[in-house]
């Protein structure tokens, strides 16, 4: 936990530096492509563009409640949609709120997919909430989340 606090402070410090001295920070950032940092709120805002996501039964997220190994956590997100040209799921996003970069993956779908389903395996740094966000073609934003208990963290 101490390490996490340290990284948080470090992130805050760099953010301040970035505002104060933009040119310097760019020069520093250019060489090592360090870890991206994105909080859950920033990631969600970037996806929805300020819209408030609606909790719905249409979207389902399947994650194990207890993950023994945080390095490999299977996640499946399914959206109930006909996937026709007029009504389809534009994108599915998977977010892990407790990771230093909350954004895991953005999947842009087309009607050619036939079904709105996406599944992958993610890393989780600790016990946290995993969310799936779906953006529909009519502009609706749906969200579903589930908390996952992680016994051994998988980051780092």
């Amino acid at each position, binding site marked *: 936990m101490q390490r996490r606090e340290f990284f948080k402070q470090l992130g805050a410090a760099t953010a301040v530096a970035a505002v104060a001295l933009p040119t310097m920070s760019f020069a520093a950032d250019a060489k090592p492509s360090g*870890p991206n940092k994105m909080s859950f709120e920033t990631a969600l805002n970037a996806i929805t563009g300020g819209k408030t996501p609606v909790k719905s039964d249409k979207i389902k997220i399947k994650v194990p409640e207890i993950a023994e190994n945080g390095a490999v956590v299977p996640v499946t997100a399914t959206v109930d949609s006909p996937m026709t040209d007029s009504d389809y799921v534009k994108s599915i996003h998977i977010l*892990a709120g407790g990771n230093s*970069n909350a954004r895991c993956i*953005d999947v*842009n779908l087309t009607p050619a997919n036939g079904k709105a*389903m996406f599944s*992958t395996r*993610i*890393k*989780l740094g600790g016990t946290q909430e995993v969310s799936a966000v779906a953006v529909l073609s009519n502009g609706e934003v749906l969200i579903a989340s589930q908390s996952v208990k992680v016994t051994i963290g998988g980051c780092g």
Partner: protein
Amino acid sequence: MAEKRKSLIKIKPKKYKDGEVVKVDFMVMHPMDTGMGKDKKTKEIIPAKYINSVKFNYNGKEITNMTVWESLSVNPVFTTNMKINGAGKLTVTFTDNTGEVHETSTKIKPKG
């Protein structure tokens, strides 16, 4: 980056008809280093190396594209659905943050 990547596209079920919706698994051997981990022996930070984007192309038409960040597991698996629409080729391309590009393709042969 002369390192050879192993990747695989699996279509489930193996036998399918035209117009059917099938599952497509894309698996790739990739380290997915976040840039936060340390080498246990040398204590040096392992530089970040993770997949940036994955694209699924079916007969020249892009059906799915993904933007990927570092919190995906080592040797990731991407599973989506696809509607079979005639015989052809499914190509999956991925790029990583160091500029490595890799392409795999498989033939689509619907029966019946």
